[in-house]
């Protein structure tokens, strides 16, 4: 394409802003319906928890970007190559990129939505900065909270509210926590961790009714609560694309160039569907954004699906999920230790880690994710070694030929032959370099003296 083409991006979330950055210097317009300058959505739960200040999550935008905030797109006019805004204004494009993200799903709970169509005042979504601020304010005056949804976001929000002093409970409809990512045993360990941290977990239970008494579950319990936070997942925001007649299944269908069924329109991030995959995570959205930026700049690159690493960002809960460990095909290497609350599992195919679950022990995460991301072909013993604890070195007696002082090249034997520390210093020059061997030299001389006196 030529530099004169006008690129219009619908959305100002993580994928959209990343793409805008990658297209710096080109004619780019960003249409965001939220009123705030672009921010790092992934850190909202950290802001709620208090580990991040809200000021610190604003993202850098390239200069000369036509950034229009508080601007909602209501229609795509493909034949005119224009988008229509809520105020009936129109913006022309040569290339259109849909980065509309996802919208939170509302679970079927009676009383959730008021007569006027708005959410019950005690009910909160958790998707935008505005949601975060509203919840933040409400949390300051609340005593307890129920989080509906035991996925990654739900656990993060639950931890955040709990750390802020609210009595917090989690309701998850599935049989265990993080059910779309991990298996039952890992989920059980997580639930136990949460309980230990003071958060009650109800699994296999659906919230059915919200009223003045509280939130009633289908198992008959009624949870008294000041706040209900909905984190029960989202679905790709596809309404615009659907109305414009683009091919939409779960998400907006894209090819290996992230192109929709209209070759002037692309889609990236949570709203897009590549193959059967709809991701819902930032790293693959950014990968898509980076790739599309290069594609639009004329590079010959194509997208072949993402390697996802889902990390829980919450104090005292250690979870990492690489790929799709419950569905990936391969041999499973697993170490589960409910006694200490750890569960680790690698799915290995042809020597390559294709998926993994790490709960409660992330000591090797830095290496495991590297192997996973790079597709490293491991030896047969390696997956097992990766899940074993670090070996502890045992102290041993130094043989005479062992080097004690690297600076001067002095062996233990030569030190043992010295009369005193001072003697060792002057005759061997041990300890006269970096000084690091001084304790070892003292110890060698002391043990030798000890041996001398006891015999």
């Amino acid at each position, binding site marked *: 394409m030529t530099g004169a083409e006008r690129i219009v991006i619908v959305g100002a979330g993580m994928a959209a802003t990343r793409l805008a950055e990658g297209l710096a210097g080109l004619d780019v317009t960003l249409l965001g319906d939220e009123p705030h300058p672009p921010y790092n959505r992934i850190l909202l739960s950290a802001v709620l928890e208090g*580990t991040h*200040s809200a000021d610190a999550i604003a993202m850098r935008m390239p200069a000369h970007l036509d950034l229009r905030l508080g601007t909602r797109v209501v229609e795509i006019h493909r034949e005119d190559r224009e988008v229509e805004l809520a105020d009936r204004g129109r913006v022309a494009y040569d290339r259109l990129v849909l980065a509309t993200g996802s919208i939170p799903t509302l679970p079927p709970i009676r009383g959730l939505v008021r007569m006027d169509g708005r959410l019950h005042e005690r009910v909160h979504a958790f998707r935008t900065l505005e949601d975060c601020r509203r919840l933040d304010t409400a949390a300051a005056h609340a005593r307890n909270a129920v989080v509906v949804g035991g996925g990654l976001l739900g656990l993060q929000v639950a931890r955040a509210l709990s750390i802020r002093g609210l009595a917090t409970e989690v309701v998850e409809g599935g049989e265990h926590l993080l059910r779309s990512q991990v298996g039952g045993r890992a989920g059980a360990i997580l639930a136990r961790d949460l309980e230990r941290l003071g958060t009650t977990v109800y699994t296999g239970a659906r919230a059915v009714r919200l009223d003045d008494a509280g939130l009633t579950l289908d198992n008959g319990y009624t949870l008294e609560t000041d706040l209900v936070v909905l984190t029960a997942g989202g679905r790709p925001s596809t309404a615009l694309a659907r109305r414009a007649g683009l091919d939409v299944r779960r998400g907006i269908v894209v090819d290996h160039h992230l192109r929709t069924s209209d070759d002037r329109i692309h889609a990236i991030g949570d709203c897009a569907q590549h193959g059967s995959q709809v991701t819902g995570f930032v790293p693959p959205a950014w990968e898509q954004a980076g790739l599309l930026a290069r594609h639009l700049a004329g590079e010959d690159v194509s997208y072949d699906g993402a390697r996802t690493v889902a*990390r829980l960002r919450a104090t005292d809960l250690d979870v990492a999920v690489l790929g799709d460990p419950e569905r990936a095909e391969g041999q499973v290497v697993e170490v589960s230790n409910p006694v200490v609350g750890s569960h680790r599992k690698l799915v290995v195919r042809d020597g390559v880690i294709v998926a993994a679950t790490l709960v409660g022990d992330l000591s090797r995460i830095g290496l495991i994710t*590297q192997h996973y991301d*790079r597709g490293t072909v491991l030896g047969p013993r390696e997956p097992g070694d990766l899940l074993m604890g670090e*070996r502890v070195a045992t102290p041993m007696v130094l043989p005479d030929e062992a080097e004690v002082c*690297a600076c001067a090249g002095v062996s233990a034997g030569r030190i043992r032959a010295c009369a005193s520390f001072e003697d060792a210093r002057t005759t061997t*020059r041990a300890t006269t370099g970096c000084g690091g061997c001084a304790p070892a030299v003292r110890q060698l001389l002391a043990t030798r003296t000890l041996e001398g006196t006891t015999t």
Partner: protein
Amino acid sequence: MTQTHCPYCSLQCGMTLERAGRTLEVQAWPEFPVNEGALCRKGWTATGLRGHRERLTTPLVRDRETGEVRATGWDEALDLVAGRLRELRTSYGADAVGVFGGGGLTNEKAYQLGKLARVALGTSQIDYNGRWCMSSAASAANRAFGIDRGLPFPLADVEQTDVLVLVGSNLAETMPPAARHLDRLRANGGHVVVIDPRRTPTADRADTFLQPVPGTDLPLALGVLHLLDAMGAVDEPYVAARTTGWDDVRRAVAAWWPERVERVTGVPASSLRALATLLAGADRAMVLTARGAEQHAQGTDTVLAWIDVALALGMPGRPFAGYGCLTGQGNGQGGREHGQKADQLPGYRMIDDPAAREHVARVWGVPAATLPGKGRSAYELLGALGTDGGPKALLVFGSNIVVSAPNATHVASRLADLDLLVVADIVMSETAALADVVLPVTQWAEETGTMTNLEGRVILRQRAVAPPEGVRSDLDVIAGIASRVGAPVVFETDPEAVFAELGRASSGGRADYAGITYDRIREENGVFWPCPTDDHPGTPRLFASSFAHEDGRARFVAVEHRGPAEPVDAAYPLHLTTGRVLAQYQSGAQTRRVRELPDDGPFVELHPMLADRIGAHDGEPVVVTTRRGELKAPARVVDTIRPDTVFVPFHWVGANRLTNDALDPVSRMPEFKVCACAVTA
């Protein structure tokens, strides 16, 4: 008895040389503050090269037809060199002659070499191996602070800080006496953090050790900065009063949350948080980078990111705090200040600055218009040798290029295409062995000259013994060539006279030596630059009240992570990194010939998990392959290295046949510290 300094690294430890009959003995010089009498085994054995049977004592000329080398007299050799240089200049222009210097040369030699190129040869084609040393830190410091002095404070200041972060430095092995300051810092209750893909002896002395994937020190810094901002630990009053650019950096690092950093660097998010918390709670913090962080195609950006960390914490200019670079070579600091660099004139002046040209030309007694402009950087200079439009002749002083340059096989092929290669050295180094003319020069202890150590302290190496018959000083050689090629001015050969001239040439520049004299250095245990006048005390600490930019403020610079130039892939699935061992120095031309220093040859360090994967056994040979070459050496199986990384020391021929010649866009530093490799047993 002569007080002098060690011939090797940038610490320039003070030592005393004592003659005992025919031998020369190294003794401690406890009063010199940098090392307080301590030395490593390289220092203690430094006189081992004296009287070595391989010492060159006569000029040698190689016959290109037969390859035979014959001894010749000095006049004949210099006449030959000058004659060929004049011919080449006539045929191809002045830039047909290149000059390649070294970071081990004294200030006087570095200065005269620059003058030789600009005044006698009229060539713009001069650079030096310091490009492969601390040039990334230099370009970053210039950008951030407006001045480049490795440490802006005396090294001993580290003992008084609260948290010391060493990024890519293995000083316990590369400059052992410096490690004493770490131990004292810890004894004072301070905390040492070491960041390195290998758990080095330095890391063993640290309280906190982070082991990132090679080439990811930059995102690690961005992650620290992200957390500092998130936890409100940024020193806002300092940032407002003393810096510019924070807002931009702040928004850029918003994208580097800990779990993202973890995925890129391999450092667990929890470790990153612990480091940020530690720094946030420190009254005084110091960040020091070395080659591990700097020798990358993004070396400048990496250093800038760590400087951003130091600035956000409000540290630079505060006592016992701030940012510094641990320079590598003996005179890495001074060598870059006085005109060996393609773009600089003495006093750290830029060659394209008209006022700088005017000033230096006046000192040199030539019209400013005759000074050439900016030339090629070190690796680009070597890459152009023998090509159309590239130099046809190269004069090499104090560098063993074919061992120390990246992608060394390619560099050797460039040298082979030259019409004339002249090497001045003390022994037949691997590079000298390829030369048409080899000129035997004096070594340390046989000559006097100043060095500038890693602190910016100008120190004096004094002659202790007479050189062997037949050997001349580099200053003599430079003057001899200058007069024979018809230089318009006379070149001094007395080091003290050269130093005085250097002082005048540097006067008013950033690295101002005008007020420094040999006598002052002797009396004051060295003098810190800038020292503009005789009565100026020198400047041990910079930045207390302002930075060197015109507005007095430091610059935050927002940088993005691009990753290594050569990422690992299926064919080359491992990271290769290179570095030093304690008993050897640089290309080993000196240390390998010292009998008392163990020469175990190159080895390949790898983790037991990797060894098991490829069937390698400790002590048995493995082959490391990259897109540029291969190396066979014994495996050293250690659990101190990342399992996805192998390490090879660079002192021996071979390591740099593997390394990547991708360059940093600003500093022109090659990416020595990471490339993709494969290893087989």
